[in-house]
């Protein structure tokens, strides 16, 4: 059943590839805008790169949050999911995982290429990819709570950013921090372990909170 949810959402994403690509291109464009805004000075860009890529990843992941539940809500399939004999939190976990596979994984794959634009070292590029790999699922999981809370509200898309962006801050700090540490020649393992801890904590808590939020929103 858990697998059915993931399979279904991936199938739907395949049928609407444009949505997936929009998020990815948004990410690429935002990252590419920064050098144009602050100038092409290579050392400054290198020191900015971790923050820029991570902020762009936050925004890109958030951009697609509204879709996580709203289309299912509008056509009545979400109602059916709530009536499933499986625990709702498991189902939410499946949907968050599918969201990550569709929006997070492409970011992880493309980020090292964008890092090259900022002249990051090979080590830093690797750490960037690893930090995104650990951090983006947390974004999807926390985002699920926001998406569930704002389900069906007018202006839900803007509202969801107001709710989840402050909660994304720890991920941003340690995600970008890991890459910075690595470019400064330090060990990034402490940052990465903390990101891993966030991931575990949100895997346990977020689906539960999001499920409670969904029940409230659909009532």
């Amino acid at each position: 059943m858990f697998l059915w949810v993931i399979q279904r959402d991936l199938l739907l994403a395949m049928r609407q590839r444009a949505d997936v690509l929009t998020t990815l291109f948004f990410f690429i464009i935002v990252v590419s805008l920064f050098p144009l805004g602050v100038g092409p000075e290579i050392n400054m860009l290198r020191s900015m790169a971790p923050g820029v890529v991570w902020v762009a990843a936050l925004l890109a992941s958030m951009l697609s949050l509204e879709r996580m539940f709203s289309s299912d809500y509008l056509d009545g399939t979400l109602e059916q999911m709530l009536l499933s004999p499986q625990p709702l939190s498991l189902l939410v976990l499946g949907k968050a995982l599918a969201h990550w596979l569709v929006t997070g994984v492409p970011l992880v794959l493309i980020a090292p290429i964008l890092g090259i634009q900022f002249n990051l070292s090979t080590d830093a590029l690797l750490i960037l990819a690893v930090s995104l790999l650990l951090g983006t699922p947390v974004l999807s999981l926390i985002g699920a709570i926001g998406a569930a809370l704002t389900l069906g509200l007018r202006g839900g898309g803007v509202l969801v950013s107001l709710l989840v962006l402050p909660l994304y801050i720890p991920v941003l700090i340690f995600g970008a921090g890991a890459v910075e540490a690595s470019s400064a020649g330090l060990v990034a393992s402490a940052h990465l372990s903390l990101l891993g801890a966030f991931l575990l904590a949100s895997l346990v808590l977020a689906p539960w909170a999001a499920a409670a939020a969904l029940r409230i929103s659909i009532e």
Partner: protein
Amino acid sequence: MLKVSDLECVRGERSLFKDVNFSIEAGEFMQVNGPNGSGKTSLLRMLCGLSMPAHGEIRWCGNAIRSLDEEYHNSITYLGHLNGVKDNLSALENLRISSALAGNEIDENKAYNALQRMGLGGREILPVKILSQGQRRRVTLARLLVCSTVLWILDEPLVALDSAAVMLVQSILEQHLEKGGMIVMTTHQDINVAAVVTKRLQLN
């Protein structure tokens, strides 16, 4: 089996209905009537546990449905006024996925047969978005053919259906009742379901 006592529904500041009492046993059919806005859909959603009554209690086999929760979901099938089908998936995919989500995995053959019986033969693998409203409704109703639940809660199942399909649905419902199933439904259309006991609930 299903017992409802002193149910009250409040929407905003208005009380839609109160002091609703009824019970349904195996093989019984209940039709909920009432004008638009009388709370028919709200009542059915409460029976599923999707929304909480302002007052009163709903019991299934003696236990409050709130405490049963997921266990209760194993015994019911709810078809709402929304079809609950995905436009970008085919009829076959929709049926298999919605059944699986309801805890009832079915193989392709079974799904094919059900769709065939609903008169969708030859359209199984078309995306649902190119089907007509009535055909989409048939995709939704095909779930009734494959599910093994006892209590069916149907909100306007006949909307957009032609007369042949209405006859078909009627026979499906009758079969379910014969097997000892229970049905609660709303409809504005005339349908004569033969049942051992037919109850009517009037909301206004």
